[in-house]
């Protein structure tokens, strides 16, 4: 996946935003609590990913490099972190679903966004509300895979509570397979949120993004926000309805 992302970056380059008169002005994209929930989940996910991969590949890939004693200590701490940080991760997923569910319901605008290539192909920026179809895909992936990883993980964390040994083995296989796909999906999310798109990281970094960036990537959301704000410019009707 990393190689695929590197190839995409070499082909597409960084997605940029043209400067406009609105450049330099800021608009709040995620408040403090939203960023808190995101980063708690994200940091736990990274540790869960690495410790989870260590369960499967560590003995064959890592132990020959660092030796059995170092690997033994590392694997033990990885196991602790995997079992204990699963809880803030699950809580974070629940919070994020609660925060962003209403903005992630698929609609016709998303279909238009997908048909336009989402801005990845070419240099245009299709219309989008607070979250575009790609971001909605990430949201539902995190919600679905997060729930699946939580349930299968709990079945292993509490052995024989609900399942017998065969059931737990099935849970382990499902947990591992979804985990690998989950990591691949989140790698793509990290890419587009940092290296792949200029200005995207600010949304989760400081919480504020450049107004020109927001207008380019989430024009319908900007208009909605400005319509709510008495001091901001009102809806201009510059864009046709995206579903038309």
């Amino acid at each position, binding site marked *: 996946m990393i190689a695929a992302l590197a190839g995409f970056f070499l082909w597409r380059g960084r997605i940029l935003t043209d400067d406009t008169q609105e450049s330099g002005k800021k608009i709040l994209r995620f408040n403090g*609590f939203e960023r808190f929930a995101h*980063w708690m989940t994200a940091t736990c996910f990274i540790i869960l990913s690495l410790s989870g991969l260590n369960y499967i590949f560590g003995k064959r890939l890592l132990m020959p490099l660092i030796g059995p004693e170092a690997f033994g200590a590392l694997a033990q701490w990885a196991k602790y972190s995997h079992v*204990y940080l699963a809880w*803030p991760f699950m809580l974070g997923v629940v919070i994020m679903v609660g925060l962003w569910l209403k903005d992630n319901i698929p609609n016709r605008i998303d279909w238009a966004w997908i048909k336009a290539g989402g801005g990845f192909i070419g240099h245009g920026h299709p219309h989008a509300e607070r979250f575009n179809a790609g971001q909605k895909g990430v949201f539902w992936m995190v919600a679905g895979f997060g729930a699946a990883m939580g349930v299968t993980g709990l079945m292993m964390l509490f052995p024989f509570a609900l399942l017998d040994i065969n059931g737990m083995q099935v849970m382990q296989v499902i947990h591992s397979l979804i985990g690998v796909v989950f990591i691949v999906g989140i790698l793509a999310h990290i890419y587009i949120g940092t290296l792949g798109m200029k200005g995207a990281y600010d949304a989760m970094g400081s919480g504020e993004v450049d107004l020109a960036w927001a207008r380019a990537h989430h024009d319908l959301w900007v208009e909605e926000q400005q319509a709510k704000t008495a001091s901001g410019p009102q809806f201009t009707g510059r864009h046709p309805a995206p579903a038309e």
Partner: protein
Amino acid sequence: MKAFAAAIIAAIALGVLAMYALTSNQTFAYQAFATSGARVSEPGVNLVGPKWNGLPVLGEANDAAHGKAEGEASHPKRS
């Protein structure tokens, strides 16, 4: 940055809480899943005895639990 720092602190705090909660309810496998037939990981009473060294060869290490093995020692195949 404040949100990020708070997230890290919260993750660690919740992890520690989870550790105490899980550890307080944890029992050894031989306690939780003991049967009258076989007990696993109960030192001194289990099938392999307290001095089992993990080697797959019957010999002196198992004498305390099973007594001296008689006859020719078997040689289990390694898979």
